[in-house]
């Protein structure tokens, strides 16, 4: 097993996810399955092959620098759980 429950806890914390104790084992197992699959892929010889940056065979999709009116403050804040002075109100950011 490469991934331990400790790793899962860490990743869950980074992702702001709460994983119930009862599902810890299951997640750990599934994470390992994913990595094992990646190991199979790693067996292929990819020497001299450029890494793929994007799956679409496209490049240089660019727009001209023209400013366009966005949405109103009212619309922007429509989904905000709390609002203060035209801003999204958030709880204190430093512990």
């Amino acid at each position: 097993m490469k991934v331990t429950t400790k790793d899962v806890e860490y990743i869950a914390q980074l992702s702001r996810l709460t994983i119930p104790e009862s599902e810890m084992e299951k997640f750990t197992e599934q994470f390992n399955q994913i990595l094992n699959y990646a190991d199979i892929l790693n067996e292929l010889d990819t020497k001299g092959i450029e890494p793929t940056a994007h799956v679409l065979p496209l490049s240089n999709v660019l727009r001209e620098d023209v400013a366009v009116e966005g949405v109103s403050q009212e619309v922007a804040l429509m989904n905000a759980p709390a609002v203060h002075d035209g801003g999204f109100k958030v709880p204190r950011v430093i512990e």
Partner: protein
Amino acid sequence: MKYATVIGLEVHSELKTKSKAFCSCSTEFGGEPNTHVCPVCLGMPGALPVLNKQVVEFAIRAGLALDCEIKKFNKFDRKNYFYPDLSKNYQISQFDKPICEHGHIDIEVDGQTKRVGITRIHMEEDAGKLVHSGATIKTSESSAVDYNRAGVPLIEIVSEPDMRSAAEARAYMEKLKAILEYTDVSDCKMQEGSLRCDANISVMPEGATEFGTRAEIKNLNSFRALERAIEYEIQRQIQLVEDGGTVVQETRTWDDGKGMTLSMRSKEEAHDYRYFPEPDLVPVVIDDAWIARVKSELPELPAARKARLMQEKGLVDYDAENIVSTKAMAEYFDEAAKHTEDSKGIANWLLGDVSAYLNSENITIEKFPITPANLGEMVNLINKGVLSSKLAKKVFAEMLKTGKTPQALVKELGLEQISDEGAIVKIVEETLAENPQSIADYKAGKDRALGFLVGQIMKKSRGKANPEMVNNLLKERMQ
């Protein structure tokens, strides 16, 4: 023990585009909170970014001006972290394939030229702004987030750890700012945050080859803050090591009021950004023709401008260096020089009285009340002998207050220097008649007597007699 300091700077510069990096919202500064926003920069699910061509254009231009190699293949990556100023919980940036690499800036400190390497320049987006409810972030119960700046394009310019003192770091920052201003890619307003600097600082025993553990100082929004913060941090680290402690790798913030750097006590995990390629943006491939075109359109840079001022205008190295140090000063000089043959005279005023005024008022040359044309004319009046240097100072002070032309002020204040020989002869003769003893003294070889007589004449003429003519006439009459 003696210590050596190692400093590297990370500079963020907002690009002067009209619209944001990945959406068409305006980049205009100010505005009511959350009024320059759309689903893309608000991070709404399903909204897709599209890259602004001008961002690439500006990044190439800045890279060329800083002697970088422009990378043909570019992709964007997601830098993941949770902080309310990021609407998406990731910042679109460039991780392993920055657009520019291997550049440099030549700085001058204490008459020595030193080359500071630029590791890389990458494109990314700015974050939003937090307005804290309390006096400081630590005492605030809540914050209000404004996403008007979220998505504004930035370039981050990362230097090599090549600087060894606060003075070198400041010189690098000043030169970098000048180059970015000349290339017109950024407003470079440190106070408004369109140019920001983080400093990585470590100390090691002199002669050591392995760098010490570094601390990163944030919130350096002026040249003065940069210099003071680095000086403080060097002393803090040396003291810590001397006392048997160890420097921890951490982020610190500069408190300008207290004059010290403070630990931000960030959590360990905050540095685990889990970069991965941004799947919503396709790569950008820059061909030779694109680079060549941007290169051909590069404006004159500080080094070239300095050379031109020395060659064409006859300025000395030091003066030329200082004139070109900001684009606005160089432009003021060029404009003023159109009105007079005496470029050196303009340079003297700019680096003397004008700079002193700007410093005392804490303003930049853009807000200087005297027009370049009026300064040029004033220099002409001095050279023609209409104004003595003493009276010129008076006119200069009046020009600052009223903005009137020097010619008008000379008339208005009755300051014209008396250069009419007849009028001066009259005063000279009068003065000689009143001071026979001085004549005797002068003839006896006491040179001080001449100075005394000149003083008397200047007093009589209320400072307006042409001093050179007075001198000559006096010597003539006392032979």
